[in-house]
Structure formats: structure tokens, C-alpha cells
């Protein structure tokens, strides 16, 4: 089976500072993979590199086997890759509805079809219907995260990148948001989720990647990876596993 999205020796740098040293990660249609790692490991950098927000060469990122690395971000979205960015990045000063309609507009513009509509999103997150006219900066963190996820879904992605969607949210809200993932996957959408909460990452994904200082240090099926393996990969070889 060819991967929906795969990276091949992906390197990224900020000026002189190299953040990623050859990362190979892949995700298949309808699959969810989790990417974990300590602060500063390079997880967000990895997702941003896929989206064309950092310079990478074409063959470092492949979509259905086709090299597309370094494609401008807006074209990446047209190609079917969407991101729920770190920090949500909503359009401040605009209503919930307008935030979402921006994504609908762009999908319409390029005739991108998929299963997502405002109505369906309202069924998935009913609060977004009640708050349709509220400006996004007046929402709670959880509601904002739902808008950010909704905006990405309305781009009709085949591959969805999620950067720490649970960050700063109450456990109940996190459960509500993660409960939406199966429906997204059922559509055939592939998901790469960056997650700080290791337990959550493990339970919500099929496979797990752990990253340390710009390199992948562990890969495996989420169901069978042990806590000890994760601890070793997370902190590196110099740290004893207790």
C-alpha cells in the first residue's frame, strides 16, 4: 500500500540552526499516526515543513508518491493537505461562521469536493452552530480549537495535520474533540497528530513516532509499544529508564 503522505530524509533549518535531521514518517489513507516528543524536538517544524512553510526539496515530501515538498502553502491545501496549527491561529475579529466560510470559499474556488459541509460540522461540534455569529476571540479555548479543526476539515483534506489540539484544554473538552477523530478517519482522511499527552497519543493512533532533537527515535504500532520504549526514545539514550 502506498502511503497517502510520506517524508523522505526531511531536513529543515532556521538559518544556521538545523532543526530536523532526515525525518522519515508516513501515513496511509484513513490511518492516524501520532508524533510525540519533548518541547523543542521539532514536531511543529516537521508539520510546517510539510505545509511548505519552511523550505524543503520536492522529494522530501510525497503525496500519493508524487514529490510535492516546498509547494507554496495555499497550493498544498488545494492538493489536499490541511493543518490545525499550533496555537489555533484563528482569524481574530471575524465570526465563527466567517472563519469557517473562508475555508469553504477556497474549497469552492478550486472545486474541491469532500464530505465536509457546514451542516455536517455543526453536527460534529453543535456548539459551533450556537456560536456562529460570535467573534472567535470571545470563545473558550475548546471552542476555538473546534473552529480551527472545522476550518481545516472544510478544506476537504485527504491528509490532516494536527498540532497539539489538546493543549491547555480541560479533560472533558479533550475527550469531546478526540471523539471526533474516528468520524474524520472514516472518511478516508489520513491524520498526523502531534500530541504532548503520550497516553492520549497512544490511544488515538494506529502507529506512533517519537522524535528527539530533530530525529525519529522510535516507530511502532501504538497498541504494542511499551512505556519503557517510549521513555527511552523520549529522553534519549543517556537517560536511564526507571
Amino acid at each position, binding site marked *: 500500500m502506498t502511503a497517502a503522505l510520506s517524508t523522505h530524509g526531511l531536513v529543515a533549518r532556521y538559518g544556521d540552526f538545523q532543526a530536523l535531521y532526515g525525518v522519515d514518517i508516513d501515513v496511509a489513507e484513513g490511518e492516524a499516526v501520532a508524533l510525540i516528543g519533548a518541547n523543542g524536538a521539532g514536531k511543529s517544524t516537521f508539520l510546517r515543513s510539510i*505545509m511548505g*512553510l519552511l523550505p524543503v526539496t520536492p522529494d522530501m515530501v510525497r503525496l500519493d508518491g508524487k514529490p510535492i515538498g516546498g509547494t*507554496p*502553502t*495555499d497550493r498544498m*491545501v*488545494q492538493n489536499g493537505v*490541511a*493543518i490545525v*496549527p499550533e496555537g489555533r*491561529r*484563528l*482569524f*481574530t*475579529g*471575524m465570526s465563527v461562521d*466567517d*472563519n469557517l*466560510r*473562508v*475555508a469553504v*470559499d*477556497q*474549497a*469552492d*474556488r*478550486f472545486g474541491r469536493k469532500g464530505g465536509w459541509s457546514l451542516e455536517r460540522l455543526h453536527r460534529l461540534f453543535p456548539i459551533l452552530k450556537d456560536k456562529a455569529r460570535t467573534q472567535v476571540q470571545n470563545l473558550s479555548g475548546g471552542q476555538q480549537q473546534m473552529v480551527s479543526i472545522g*476550518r481545516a476539515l472544510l*478544506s476537504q483534506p485527504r491528509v490532516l495535520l494536527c498540532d497539539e489540539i489538546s493543549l491547555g484544554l480541560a479533560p472533558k473538552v479533550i475527550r469531546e474533540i478526540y471523539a471526533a477523530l474516528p468520524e474524520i478517519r472514516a472518511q478516508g482522511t489520513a491524520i498526523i497528530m502531534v500530541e504532548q499527552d503520550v497516553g492520549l497519543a497512544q490511544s488515538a493512533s494506529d502507529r506512533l513516532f517519537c522524535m528527539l532533537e530533530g530525529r525519529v527515535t522510535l516507530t511502532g504500532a501504538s497498541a504494542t509499544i511499551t512505556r519503557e520504549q517510549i521513555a527511552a526514545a523520549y529522553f534519549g539514550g543517556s537517560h536511564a529508564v526507571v
Partner: protein
Amino acid sequence: MQWFDALIQGILLGGMYAQYALGMALMFGVMRIVNVSHGDLVILLSLIGISLASAWGLGPFTVMVALVPLAVAMGWLLQKGILNRVVGDDPLPSLIATFGLSLALQNLMLQIWSANSRSLPGGGIESQSVQIGGIYIGLLPVIVLAFATGLTWGLDLMLKRTRFGRALRAASADVEAASMTGINARAVYASATAIAVGILGFAAVFQSLRSTVAPADGGAQLIYAFEAVIIGGMGSVWGAFIGSMVLGISQAIGFRIDPGFGVLAGHIVFLLVLATRPQGLFGKA
């Protein structure tokens, strides 16, 4: 009565300033660009309009029909050719680029039209007025205000209701997030500048009807637009409109106090707003 008259004349004058300020507010709001060549573009368009009128004997509204599409094209080219290369987090490159463009345009206009003042023949509308309750109201200023109101209303509606308007507001709020939602920011910018300069096509006709224009006049128009935008609050369309009214009224009242004090009164109100409410009357803190 004298002060009421000043108020009315000030609002009418504000209509002219609003036509300069709208495009400046739009460009600043979306790209954080202060277009230093804004006033020179008005003058350039005015001179082109005057030449068109005298070459073919066109009336002012026929000139407008020709000038607005030309202005739209100029704005689009300005963004595609120059501003898209310098737009970014740092405001300095675009400031330098538009400053350079301003100088280049002034010299170009001097070459083509010489330093002489010219104006657009209006076939009489520029001197018609009606008297209401002891106050003379010029027909042309009323038309100018009506166009300014219509343009502000149309621009506001476009920003609120259309696909392009939403994309523009999104790019203005967070350009990177906009690109992550599929928006081509540079294409949106090109359309925004096309609209901003397109509005100057209207302004150019009215400016050259109500007074004379000469190649070096752009600076004053730039200052008025800039002051109106600051008074109203950067990046808000109705804010720019109200800011223009405040500027016009300040100048008209100052002029009644002492004819030499008119323009200065506008500068003083501008400085007062800047000192006490730097985000502008309608801007968010």
C-alpha cells in the same frame, strides 16, 4: 450660523478626503503598507484625465469611466510588480519602495506635463450651488460626498459579504493562517491594491474638478489621507470615512477662525488624536 456653515462645508470637504483615505486604509489594514505614492497617484490620474478630456473633449463623467479601470490596472500592476516583493513583517522596505516610486512619479509627471497647474472643465457643475436656509451648498461637493459615502458603503459591504472580502479580512488578521486555509495572499493583495488605487480614479476626477492640480501636489493629498486614516483608526473603512469628516470639519472651522489656520487646525486635531487615542477614534486598543 457661521459655525453651522463651517460644519456643513467641513463635512463636504471630508467627502473629498474620504476618497483618498479609503484606499490608504484598505492597504494599511490588509498589508500594513503605508503607500507614500498615494497622493502622487491621484495627481497622475488627474493629469491623465485632464489630457483625455482636452484631447477628445470628454465630459468629467466620461473621463471617470475611462479613468477608474485604468486606475484599477495601475494598482494591480503596482502590487504585482513592486509591492509584492517588499511586503512583509518589516514595514521599512515597502516604505522605501513607495517613497522611491513617489519621487519617480513626480519627475515623470514634470517631464510630461511640466510644472503648470491645470484643471478639468466640468461644464458648469463645479460652480453650481443651492441656498438652503442661508447656507450655500455647492453641487460638486455634494456629489463628491455622495460618491464617498457610496464607495465606503460598497467597500464595507464587499469586505463583509463576499468571498474576496472574507479572504482579505483573513489575510489581514493572520496571513500565514490564511495561506494554511488555501488563500493565495499575493493574489488577494493585488486585488486589494487594485481596489485602493481604483478608488483614486474617482478621487482624481473630483480633485481636478474642484481645484487645479500640478505634479508636485501629491504630498498634500497624501498627508490628508494619512491624517484621516489615523484619526479614524487604521484599517477600518468607516473609521477612515469618519476620520475624513473630522479632518474636513477641523479644517473648515480653523479656516473660519483665521483663513491661514485651516490646514493647521487639521494637523492639530490629528496630533491631538495621535497623542490621546493613538489607535484612532474607531480603532481597537
